[in-house]
């Protein structure tokens, strides 16, 4: 293999600035998408556990649609198809007025896609709670809302923290798909540096290290959170 290494490249202008801004874009994109995924996913997940036929159907349909279409296809739909179907004024705004449309399209697509996965975790968390808890809460005179607010959700969320960590890391990694819309996130930046400098290893290595570090950091933080919020006397308390 004949290759002249130049690690110093990563610390020179303009590349060092590109990497920093690419990394920042990835983090911001993933954070916004996660906020959408978590809030929409929680609502849809709760919907799926309700007795109300209409709401639980809405939940099921949402999950099946968003889970069964590849994220990349969903991004294309949000970017190329949805704007065309909007009413005239909204169309003008989306196409001309909206700042940074690629970025926000990616946020929405990634957020709503991940919401379907979060919804499934939240549902399984709520359904894993023995039915006696719900019955006891109702017998105490709690309303349906109160049962969820004070009994089911606090327990349900805590039992699914490990799976939610996986979903968060999924958002973080999947944010790289935004490069297909032209968002300059971390992976796109690495590719751009490769094209400008003809050095292929160093930029990808930098991106790899950054992704791995964030993953490691997230796993460590979530392990801590898991320990802090552990429910005494449950199986998860014995786990590592």
């Amino acid at each position: 293999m004949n290759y002249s290494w130049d690690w110093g490249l990563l610390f020179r202008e303009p590349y060092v600035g590109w990497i920093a801004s690419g990394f920042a874009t990835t983090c911001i994109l993933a954070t916004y998408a996660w906020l959408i995924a978590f809030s929409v996913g929680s609502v849809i997940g709760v919907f799926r556990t309700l007795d109300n036929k209409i709401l639980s159907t809405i939940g099921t349909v949402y999950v099946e649609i968003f889970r069964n279409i590849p994220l990349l296809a969903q991004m294309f739909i949000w970017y190329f198809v949805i704007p065309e179907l909007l009413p005239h004024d909204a169309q003008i705004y989306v196409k001309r007025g909206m700042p940074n449309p690629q970025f926000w399209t990616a946020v929405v697509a990634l957020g709503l896609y991940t919401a379907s996965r979060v919804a499934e975790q939240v549902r399984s968390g709520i359904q894993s709670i023995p039915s006696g808890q719900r019955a006891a809460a109702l017998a105490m005179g709690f309303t349906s809302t109160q049962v969820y607010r004070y009994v089911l959700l606090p327990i349900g969320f805590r039992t699914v923290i490990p799976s939610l960590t996986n979903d968060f890391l999924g958002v973080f990694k999947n944010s790289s798909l935004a490069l297909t819309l032209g968002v300059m996130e971390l992976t796109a930046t690495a590719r751009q540096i490769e094209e400008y400098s003809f050095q292929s290893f160093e930029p990808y290595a930098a991106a790899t290290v950054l992704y791995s570090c964030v993953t490691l950091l997230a796993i460590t933080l979530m392990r801590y959170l898991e320990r802090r919020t552990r429910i005494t006397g449950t199986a998860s308390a014995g786990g590592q």
Partner: protein
Amino acid sequence: MGFDFNVLWQYKELLLHGLMVSFQLTLVAIAGGIVLGTFLALMRMSRLRVLSALAGLYVNFLRSLPLILVIFWFYVLAPKIVGHPIDAYSSVLITFILFEAAYYCEIIRAGISSVKRGQVQAGLAMGLTHLNMMRYVVLPQAFRNMLPVLLTQSIIMFQDTSIVYIVGVRDFLTTADVVANSTNRPIELYTTVAVTYLVICFAASRLVGRLQRSYAL
């Protein structure tokens, strides 16, 4: 703006061929991923510290990276190592096998751990070697336990194959994109892609659910 779904009929052979490429990629990657994943899982559960550490490192490292980045890595790295260019299709195929093996490894490891300890002891007491005990006692039961999860992961992988778009392999999505650009009919084509994936993946996940109920040990 009017819709014109005739364009689909006009390009049906191209699109079907694209869909076939997606299926082909998925099937080869599943087969390769499961074989490699099984080896990794056995390594991870090995009593030899070096083996389990190596496998653990491989799995955790790949699982922390986005698939796109791994595809770029291999696309750039492989030709430099082999010394001649590699076509995009083989490149992504190998990447998929290497990448998915890490995910399959964890599923298979969980499946093997789900087999009761007594089965292992009984196998060894019968005089089977460690390898034969794995081959005839543990793995058949383990695969049965993990089948639903393996299939679900495979459905996810079928969706993930659309990522080959970034290196220009003509799978279903890429073909649709090419047709969309040349005919200026993006709405019809992207919608068709989404609906096709939805139907296939929905049907497949229903089948997995049914299998899970009828096949559980």
